[in-house]
């Protein structure tokens, strides 16, 4: 694996996370429990899609095969995606969606903090822009997790169920492989494993305030960011997201 091949993989991981989560969050548009949350979720989804354009655009550039961000987003199949499994699982109820958002935002904010110091200035520039958006995403999702976790009996129960369901998907964020080793060597990105302590401290504070209990299990699903194995949900998501470009290749408006 050359430096550029590893770099491309890294950029796909960043861009596929924001693309797939952005699509998932956009599924709430018109369906959120209240108008205010509906608009807030749509804003979050749009931020994530905007970040996708930057990450996948750079991925196309580094890859050097003349592919645009759109080509990469709409013309790959499941096995080529490099997102965390966490972001492709179905939304579930509103509580689970916000719990997933909070877990992702916590990791994302820490990751972007490191990427702002990347040796590659294009990566640093994208991270600087995205980190302002993500700081707000985290503030909002953490507030909602605390509000619902430390809320009524029913909201507490649902949030604990959401955490129990999603926690096994957290470990994948911190698994390092050859791609990461290459990125660390080049000074482009931090070692994922090195983010764990900051993440545990941050998410621990939020979940304690939310009166929720982190499951006592080290079991973790994996395979998304390496592309080895996605859940069955990603294919269904892609059929929705990609059908227009698949049915009418090259369609524009």
């Amino acid at each position: 694996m050359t430096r550029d091949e590893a770099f491309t993989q890294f950029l796909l991981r960043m861009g596929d996370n924001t693309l797939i989560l952005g699509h998932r969050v956009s599924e709430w548009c018109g369906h959120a429990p209240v108008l205010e949350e509906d608009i807030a979720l749509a804003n979050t989804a749009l931020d994530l899609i905007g970040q996708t354009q930057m990450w996948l655009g750079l991925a196309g550039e580094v890859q050097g095969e003349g592919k645009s961000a759109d080509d990469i987003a709409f013309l790959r199949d499941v096995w080529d995606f490099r997102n965390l499994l966490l972001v492709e699982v179905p939304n579930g109820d509103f509580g689970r969606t916000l719990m997933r958002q909070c877990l992702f935002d916590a990791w994302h904010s820490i990751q972007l903090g490191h990427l702002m110091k990347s040796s590659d200035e294009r990566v640093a520039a994208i991270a600087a822009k995205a980190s302002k958006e993500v700081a707000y995403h985290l503030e909002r999702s953490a507030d909602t997790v605390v509000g619902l976790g430390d809320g009524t009996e029913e909201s507490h129960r649902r949030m604990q169920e959401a955490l129990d369901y999603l926690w096994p998907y957290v470990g994948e964020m911190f698994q390092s492989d050859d791609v990461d080793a290459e990125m660390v060597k080049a000074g482009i990105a931090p070692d994922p494993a090195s983010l764990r302590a900051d993440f545990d401290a941050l998410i621990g504070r939020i979940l304690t305030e939310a009166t929720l209990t982190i499951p006592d299990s080290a079991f973790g699903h994996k395979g998304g960011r390496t592309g080895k194995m996605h859940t069955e949900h990603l294919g269904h998501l892609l059929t929705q997201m990609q059908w227009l470009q698949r049915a009418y290749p090259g369609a524009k408006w």
Partner: protein
Amino acid sequence: MKNEWPLWEIFIRGQHGMSHRHVGSLHAPDAEMAIKNARDVYTRRNEGVSIWVVEANHIAASSPGDKGPLYEPSESKVYRHPTFFDIPEEVGAM
């Protein structure tokens, strides 16, 4: 038990505006969330630099029925309007 979140009135100071202006209302469980919701509902097109939120039931309002006694007496008192003076430019907006 009341399940509906309270109503908040939202005031936003625009990029170049000098005072906060009422832009609308929304529902939120508390003041902090009201500010966040206002940010998402009313500033997504870069409209503001500052947000105030006030719970609607804390606003005391005049009654439309009192319109006569409240406002009509001033209609006939043109001498209260400072239209007879030239305002120097240095004063700026008033």
